[in-house]
Structure formats: structure tokens, C-alpha cells
């Protein structure tokens, strides 16, 4: 470490500013001449109040932070600029150091010369010059920063959980068990999510129902959990600690106060419908139904689109036969509003639609099944009572092909790996072998089995005699082409390049199971918008930090868990749910949350009451006092976007943390402190350097 120490505060500067330039090991120092930036700052920013400029190997290390603290105390610094990584990385860290030394944390500015400079440029001279400009921007800006106090909001102890899959159930139970109220919203008639459809779960082969049902029941009966099934959130207003959520309860046409869940209506209902949801299209349900026997809650719903009464005005069998008179055809959708302090999004996934891969023939060739169809088929409570049979419902297959990565790891569909399909395919191989004598082929690209006891399970399935063919399946057909295939007339032929043997193969099977990938719910973007969070281009919720904050979103007070964040298995979903719950509980226990004090304020003397700003705030933070003809910002609702500040024609609105003068000064620093853009290599010469 070395420092360019200026003896005394130069005349003309109001503040005493310290500049700290980080090497970040070699992350910054390899591309930016850190010492030069230090010297430049000392030499050229003295008239802006810089009294000390230092460089250090790792500013974020405790020794680096102590350096700042020491200078604040010994040199009487009134402002600090750290040139290191992105503010999203370590702003809190350095603000904390300032606070410990008695300097208001908002008088510290972290400017990024790593993500925004050393990592994206290769030319050392250019990157160094840019770093100097960035430091100057920070110094110019920080001179105009004001001491701020975080804005404290009380946290409503109630929590909203959206999505009643295993992730949502787990989150809800954790919070409810800790003694706080939860509203669990599920759009289907029952909670349970995808896990309710499975028979066995990898790698342990526990019975899904046996482990899920107790949790569902506990959630359903929990005194702290209010279930809103057959419901959806239609509006979210407010902010962290104080959301007002509107939930639409779709009409069930069954009075839950009277219904005992006896099931007579379902038994007697003459309307039989293919169940595309729970039975994945492999079985039937009635017009009035509970999706599955263990449903929570136990009350059925009437599917008006498939109800004879609603179609023709006749029938009414359920109403006539219901022993408690619970059927109520006049029920209407209802909206309720609830107040919550935090929200957990656990809306899960949807299965990739295998029809999109036309060459696999799903929907065209009857004996091509999806993974969810197979889950239902292998389920003892499913449509075939657990028998593994072809679409005709009787014939047992002699050979079964399981195709991996359908719609995943494929440029035409989704680039990502769906994470669970390898294991789920191995589970299927095991189940086929357990129930039939069929030969099982696994067509895989590579087997991804990184979880606990996963690889052991893979070994076990191999030992059980399944055949593993490495190669992406080219096509599945039901026509024989080669003379020696005559015998396989009527079967399915899987064409694949066996990349281990280096040969093209055409393997005849009776049944094909497509291990479709996981996709975000079709309305994921819309739901994200409603909750003010962002999704990646793929549609998965973006976490606040992929590693360090994996269940928080960018929006304060909104968390996410389970497959809403991306493909993952049950243990991970459960862990996410618990993690999100822990985050929420910490806040509830704290009772209040300190928020960034970035807020807009109206100077009422100068406000003319023109009402330009009134409709600009998405949080309705701006109120107009008609009597006085002035507008005012409610600081509890303001999120600090700054739109109204930039819009007010009278210049009556100012913003703390990002004031006009701070921003303009930063621009001054960025642009005037540097002799033009440094030379950089031509675009053609540049190439991406892998991380």
C-alpha cells in the first residue's frame, strides 16, 4: 500500500475528501494502472477537496476498510470515494466502514472501475484514463452529497405466499409455525403443485403423496394460514412492509361452509372431462371435481365450461343430491383485500410443450408420452392404477425409450438445462423396470447427477440393466424403412447417433417417454409485472444476487422460492421456501425496515399546483391538496425513481441521494476531468475473454 498524501487541505475546497483505489488483487490492477489513478487523483482533484489518495490490494478486506476508518478519524475526512467494484457489490461494505468511523454513510461514494472498466476493456492506457474520469465523477459528486438517514418503514407481520406448490407450502409453514399470519394463494382448486402428481421421487424413491400430503394437511389446518385456492392476485399496491393485495376468489359454486367433502356430487355428475391438468391428459375428472382425493382443501369446484347446468340449464344432479345443500349455482367471483408486509412468489414451472418438437411426434403418435403422463401412469392412484401400458390401456411395452433434454439445452427452444430431467428419467427407468420386463433405453446428451445420492442412483439404474445411449435423438417415427425392420411394424423407431459407438442407430421401442424441460408459467412475465419484479429473458424470476441473495428479488419486500426462480428439484424448492421464510421472519421480528433514503420532496413554496406530476407516480405517492393548490410526496410511498423530479416544470421537486447537483457534478467530473476518450482497440480486434 502506498499513499499520495497531500499536506493540507487546499484552499478553495469545502470538503476533505479521501480517494481509495482498489487493486482487487489483479482484477483491477491488471488492466488499470492503480497507482497512476491514485497519483492523478491526488494531483488533479485537490482543488475539489481531495486530501488523501491511496491504493490498496483489497479495499473490501477488513484492513482496507480500516484504512478508511483511520483516515476519517485522523485526517478528518468529510467525504469518501472508493474506486473498486460495482456499488451493487460493496456499497454497503464501505458505507458501513464510514459509519463505524462516525461519518454519515451516505457521504461515501463507491465508483466502479472493475465491472465498468477493468473487466470490460483491454487497453491499459485507455482503461486507466477512464478510471480517472470515473474517480473524478465520484469526487465531484460526493462533494454535493448530503448526510441522510435511512427511511424506516414498519413491517406488517402478515405474509403473502403466491403459489401452493411444495416451495410455497414450505415457506408458508415456516412462517406460520413461527406464529405469524400467512395468506397462501393458489390458482388451482387444491394446493400441492406438481409434486402432487408424482408417484415416487428421486433419488430416494419416497412416495410423493406420503411426504406431501401431511404438509398439505398441516398447511390447510394451520391456524395462521389462510388458504385462498381457486384464486389469483389481481392487484398489488403499496410497498415493503405495507402491501395491499387484492385477491380474486373465483366462484367455486360450492358453499365451503356447508360442504363436507363427501364426494357425492363428483360421483353423480354425468359430465366427464379429460383432465389435462392433474392427470396430464391421461385420465378423466368430472364437471364438479377435486383434482385428487387428498386435495386440500377438500371442497370441489364446478368447472362451468364443462357443466351441463351452466351450458344448458338442465341437470343439476349435484345440487339435488348434495346432502348438505352446498351447491350454489349463483355464487359470484369475489375480491378480498389483505394487508401484508412481505410477499413470496412460488409460482413454480410449467412443462415444456413437447408438441413443439415435431420430429418427436408427441400428439401424433399415441405411444409417445410426456414425463408428466408417465408420472400419472406409474402412480398407483393414477388412471392406470400404476400399470405401465401403451395408450390402448392394456398392452405392456417390451421396450421403452426415454428421451432426455426435450426442449432444454437446445437453441431452438431453451438454452438452459432443466436440471431435474436426468434424474427424473433415471427414476422412470427404474419404475419401468420395477413394473414391467421391458428393456429401457436412456437417450441422453450427458447425465447430470450432481446432487446428494444422485450419482449412486444413476449407478443403481445402470446396474438394473437399462441401456444408455449417448446422443440427441434425431427423430421418432412409426414407419419401418429398412428391410430388417419389418418385424417392428407398428412399433416406434428412435433414430439417434450413438456418439460413444460412433454409429447411427434406429432402435425399435413400444413406448417413448419425453423428458420435457421446465419452463416458467406462461403468465410469468405478467405476474412479475404485477409484483413489480423482473424476469430474465427466459422468464425466470431474477434474484437480487445469484449467489449471495438467491431468494430475494430486486424489489424490497418481494421474495421468490422454488421453480419460479429456475428449474430445481424438490429439496432445493423446500430449502428455498424455508430461506425466503427466514428472510421474511427476520424482518417481521425486527418490526421495521431501514430503506434507502432516496426520496422526492416537493418545495411547497415553489409548487404552483400545475398537477403535471400528479399522475406520474406508479406508487400514487404524490397527493394534491386542492385547497392549497400544492402537491406533496408521501415519503412512505415514494420509491425514489426520480421521474417527478425530472418532470416538475417549476423545479419544485428535489431528490435526496440523486439530486440534480449531484448528477450534474458527476457528469462534470466524468467529462471534464479527462482529455477525451482514451484510445481503445478497434472493435474487430476485440474478443471476449472467458471469465
Amino acid at each position, binding site marked *: 500500500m502506498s499513499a499520495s498524501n497531500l499536506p493540507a487541505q487546499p*484552499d*478553495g*475546497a*469545502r*470538503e476533505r475528501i479521501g480517494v481509495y483505489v482498489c487493486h482487487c488483487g489483479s482484477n483491477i490492477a491488471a488492466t488499470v494502472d492503480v497507482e497512476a489513478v491514485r497519483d492523478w487523483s491526488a494531483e488533479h482533484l485537490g482543488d*475539489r*477537496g481531495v486530501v488523501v489518495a491511496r491504493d490498496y490490494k483489497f479495499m473490501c478486506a477488513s484492513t482496507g476498510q480500516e484504512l478508511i476508518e483511520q483516515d476519517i478519524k485522523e485526517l478528518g475526512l468529510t467525504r469518501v470515494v472508493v474506486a473498486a467494484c460495482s456499488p451493487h457489490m460493496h456499497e454497503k461494505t464501505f458505507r458501513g466502514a464510514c459509519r463505524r468511523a462516525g461519518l454519515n454513510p451516505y457521504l461515501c461514494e463507491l465508483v466502479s472501475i472493475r465491472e465498468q472498466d477493468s473487466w470490460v476493456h483491454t487497453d491499459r492506457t485507455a482503461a486507466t484514463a477512464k478510471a480517472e474520469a470515473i474517480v473524478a465523477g465520484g469526487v*465531484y459528486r460526493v*462533494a*454535493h452529497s448530503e448526510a441522510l438517514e435511512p427511511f424506516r418503514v414498519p413491517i406488517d407481520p402478515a405474509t403473502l405466499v403466491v403459489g401452493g406448490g411444495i416451495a410455497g407450502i414450505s415457506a408458508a409453514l415456516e412462517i406460520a409455525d413461527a406464529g405469524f399470519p400467512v395468506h397462501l394463494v393458489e390458482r388451482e382448486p387444491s394446493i400441492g403443485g406438481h409434486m402432487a402428481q408424482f408417484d415416487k421421487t428421486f433419488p430416494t424413491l419416497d412416495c410423493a403423496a406420503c411426504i406431501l400430503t401431511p404438509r398439505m394437511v398441516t398447511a390447510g389446518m394451520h391456524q395462521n394460514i389462510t388458504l385462498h385456492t381457486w384464486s389469483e392476485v389481481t392487484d398489488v399496491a403499496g410497498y415493503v412492509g405495507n402491501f395491499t393485495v387484492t385477491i380474486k376468489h373465483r366462484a367455486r359454486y360450492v358453499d365451503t361452509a356447508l360442504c363436507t367433502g363427501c364426494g357425492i356430487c363428483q360421483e353423480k355428475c354425468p359430465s366427464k372431462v379429460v383432465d389435462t391438468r392433474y392427470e396430464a391428459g391421461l385420465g378423466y375428472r368430472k364437471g364438479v371435481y377435486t383434482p385428487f382425493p387428498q386435495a386440500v382443501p377438500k371442497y370441489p369446484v364446478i368447472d362451468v365450461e364443462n357443466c351441463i347446468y351452466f351450458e344448458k340449464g338442465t341437470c343439476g344432479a349435484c345440487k339435488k343430491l348434495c346432502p348438505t345443500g352446498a351447491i350454489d349455482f349463483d355464487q359470484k367471483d369475489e375480491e378480498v383485500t389483505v394487508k401484508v408486509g412481505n410477499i413470496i412468489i412460488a409460482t413454480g414451472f410449467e412443462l415444456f410443450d413437447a408438441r413443439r418438437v415435431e420430429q418427436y411426434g408427441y400428439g401424433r403418435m399415441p405411444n409417445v408420452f410426456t414425463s408428466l403422463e408417465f408420472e400419472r401412469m406409474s402412480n398407483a392412484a393414477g388412471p392406470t392404477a400404476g400399470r405401465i401400458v401403451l395408450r390402448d390401456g392394456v398392452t405392456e411395452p417390451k421396450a421403452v425409450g426415454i428421451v432426455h433434454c426435450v426442449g432444454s439445452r437446445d437453441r431452438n427452444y431453451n438454452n438452459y438445462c432443466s436440471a431435474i430431467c436426468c434424474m427424473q428419467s433415471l427414476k422412470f427407468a427404474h419404475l419401468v423396470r420395477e413394473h414391467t420386463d421391458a428393456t429401457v433405453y436412456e437417450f441422453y446428451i450427458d447425465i447430470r447427477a450432481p446432487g446428494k445420492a444422485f450419482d449412486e442412483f444413476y449407478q443403481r439404474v445402470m446396474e438394473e440393466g437399462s441401456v444408455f445411449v449417448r446422443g440427441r435423438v434425431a427423430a421418432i417415427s412409426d414407419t419401418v424403412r429398412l428391410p430388417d425392420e419389418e418385424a417392428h411394424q407398428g412399433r416406434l423407431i428412435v433414430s439417434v447417433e450413438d456418439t460413444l459407438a460412433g454409429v447411427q442407430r434406429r432402435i425399435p421401442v413400444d413406448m417413448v417417454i419425453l423428458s420435457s424441460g421446465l419452463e416458467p408459467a406462461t403468465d410469468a412475465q405478467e405476474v412479475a409485472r404485477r409484483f413489480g419484479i423482473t424476469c430474465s429473458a427466459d422468464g425466470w424470476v431474477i434474484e437480487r444476487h445469484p449467489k449471495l441473495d438467491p431468494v430475494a428479488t430486486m424489489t424490497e419486500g418481494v421474495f421468490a422460492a422454488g421453480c419460479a426462480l429456475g428449474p430445481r428439484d424438490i429439496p432445493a424448492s423446500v430449502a428455498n421456501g424455508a430461506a425466503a421464510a427466514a428472510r421474511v421472519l427476520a424482518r417481521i421480528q425486527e418490526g421495521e425496515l431501514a430503506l434507502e433514503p432516496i426520496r422526492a420532496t416537493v*418545495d411547497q*413554496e*415553489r*409548487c*404552483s*399546483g*400545475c*398537477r*403535471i406530476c*400528479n*399522475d*406520474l407516480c406508479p406508487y400514487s405517492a404524490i397527493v*394534491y391538496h386542492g385547497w392549497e*393548490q400544492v402537491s406533496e410526496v408521501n415519503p412512505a410511498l415514494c420509491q425514489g425513481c426520480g*421521474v417527478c423530479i*425530472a*418532470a*416538475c*416544470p*417549476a*423545479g*419544485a421537486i*428535489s431528490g435526496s441521494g440523486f439530486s*440534480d*447537483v449531484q448528477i*450534474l*457534478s458527476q457528469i*462534470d467530473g466524468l467529462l*471534464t476531468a479527462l482529455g477525451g476518450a482514451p484510445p481503445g482497440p478497434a472493435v474487430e480486434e476485440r474478443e471476449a475473454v472467458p471469465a
Partner: protein
Amino acid sequence: MSAKPRLAMYWAAACGGCDIAVLNLGEALVEVGSRFDVVFWPAVMDAKYADVEAMPDASIDITLFCGGIRNDENEHLAHLLRAKSKILVAFGSCASEGCIPGLANLSTLDEILDASYANETTDNPDGVRPVPAWRENGVTLRIPTLAPLLRTLDQVVPVDYTVPGCPPETKRIEDVVELVGKALDGTAVLPPRGSVLGAGHSTVCDECARERNVKKIGAFRRVTEIATIDPTLCLLEQGIPCNGPATRDGCGALCPAAAAPCIGCYGPADGVLDYGARLMSAFASVVDADEPERIEVILDGIADPVGQFYRFSLASSLLRGGREAMDQAHRGRASAPVGSPAANHPAPRLGRTPPSAPMLDVLGPQDHVPQRAPTGPEPPAPTLEPVGGPAR
């Protein structure tokens, strides 16, 4: 030396409307005449520059300077009157922000001269152009030389106060005269240097009696395109681009009261860096469309954006005000030393921000570049020696 305070009024690049506004004082003008010794006022009395040049420095108590600086004569008089005056007031829109003459800053000097001497409306077969000096029979005839840009008074010399308006409303001139009179009597203190006199701290909407609602503009229209203008509803809400929201109050909202949109002659409100920027930001923000194509269509309704947003303020705008305007913005943000000479130096011009709520915090090296809203110790008001007893 006369016992009465000495007053001067001058017109540089201006239309003369400001002088007429002062004459409009009517009877109050008699009062002015008896309170002040008018030493220089070309619009109403004969005067020679040489007379002014002969005056001792700081011998004029207060000068009302109208007009922008368009030529070397204007500039000379600006420097001259600055030197001779204790208080220099940028009087009216031209002096304070350039006004209509400032719109010529969109054109080069050649374009300006072409428009006057060589277009279809002129009969000038020899292509005669003005020359600054002409020697004939041993005598040099001179006319002023045009400057390439029109500059505002405060871009040329430090200004103590600003009275906005095109022209300033007579009632507000009376207020200013009264204030100065009281200051002379010792019964009132002048506001800090750099303050705006004869106007408010908010914008025209503040004074406008029209009823207003949440703003959403689906179409901009000219007054002439509307069959009947709602007599009580905000004009902007009727789609008429009214500059009231961004224009300093003080006029009494006369135009909107007469169903004519405010065109912005009172200039920007306190602390505003660029009038047009504020106004365009406000208008655009409330355009009622989200799709680019639709937004474009609505904005097409503003036929001449620069004219709409900069009719009066182009010469003081960031982009067309010349380097001075930009530097002013720059310097405005330089950290100012506490206790250094600069801090004690009064900060002239549009004082704009009341010290309690500084917007653009400004202090810095002083010279001919004016300053904006000061922070730190409030700059002292210029001193006027009280003369005589209370006003008669």
C-alpha cells in the same frame, strides 16, 4: 452632486417595450421623477455616451438595463454602466434571458444578414451590406458591429438584480420602485444580490384561476383549432400548449385568463438551469401514450418545439446560450471555499433559490461570469446610502 439618488435606464438589443412599460407607470412616474435624479435615459431624454463616460465610477445608484447584447455598442454600454452603477438591474426578458432577439442564436451571422439584406423581400441589387466603419471626406462614420451571438446581460457583466417579463408588468415595476424607495428610506432591506425582483418564486399556474386536474395530454392543438375553449378549465388540459407550468409567476396569469396560453415571458422559476428543458420534460411526461409511434403523433402537435420551449430563453439556454451559459452551469457546481474571498463575494444574478432550499449549490470564482443560487452565508445586499428623510 444631487441629493437625490441617481437613476439610469438603457436599451440595448430590445424593442423598447420595457421603456413603455415604465412610462405606463403614469402618475407614479411623477413620483419616480421626484424621488430620483434621472441621469441617463435615451428613450425619453437626450443623452451622450460621453456624459456617462465622464461620470465617476459607482456614481449611478441604480441602472435599469433593458435589452440583450447583440453588438459592440451594447457590450460597451454594458461594461460602462456596470462600472458606473452601484446596482445594475437586468430589466425585462431581453436583458435577463435574451427574449425574441435571442432566437437569432439559431442562425449564423451570415444567415441573419441575408435575411435582412438579401432575400426576396429586399430590393438590394448591389448586395450592399453594412460595414462597421466607413471613411469618407476624412470623416469616419461608424455603426456598431454585430456579434455572432446575442448574449444576455449577465453573460457579459455581473448583474445585481433581475426583473423579468416581456415587458415587466407595470404593477410589478411599481412594486420594485416602491421597494427601492423603501430601501433608500431605510424602511426595507433589499434582497440578496442575484435575486429576482418584481416576480414570485413559483410559476404562472400558481396565479392562474383555471381549474386543473391530473394532466394527461392526448393531443396538442393550437388555440385556433379549438372551436370553443372551455372558459374555466386549464388550457393545457385542453391540449393547448400553455407554458404556465414552467414560467415564473408575477404577471398575474393574464394570458391564460384571456384564454391565450402562457408563452413564457417571465422566464424560468427559481433554481432552473434551462427553461426549455424543464418545460419539454413536463410536457413529454404527461403525453398520454406509451408506444413510440403514438407518442410521436401526439408530439407532432407541437409544431415548432424550439419556438415553444425557448421563445424567450434561447440565449440563456444550455445549448444555444454560447459557452457562457454552459460555463455558468459548470461553475455553478464547483465546490466553493468556506471563508475564501469567493464566499464573501456577493453572488449576483437570478438569485433564484431561497437560501433555505438550495437547488443548485453555487459558489465559485467570480468575475464576469454570473453565479446562481448561493449556499453558505447569505450574500449581503448591495448597500444604498439612505438619502433624506422618509419619502414625501
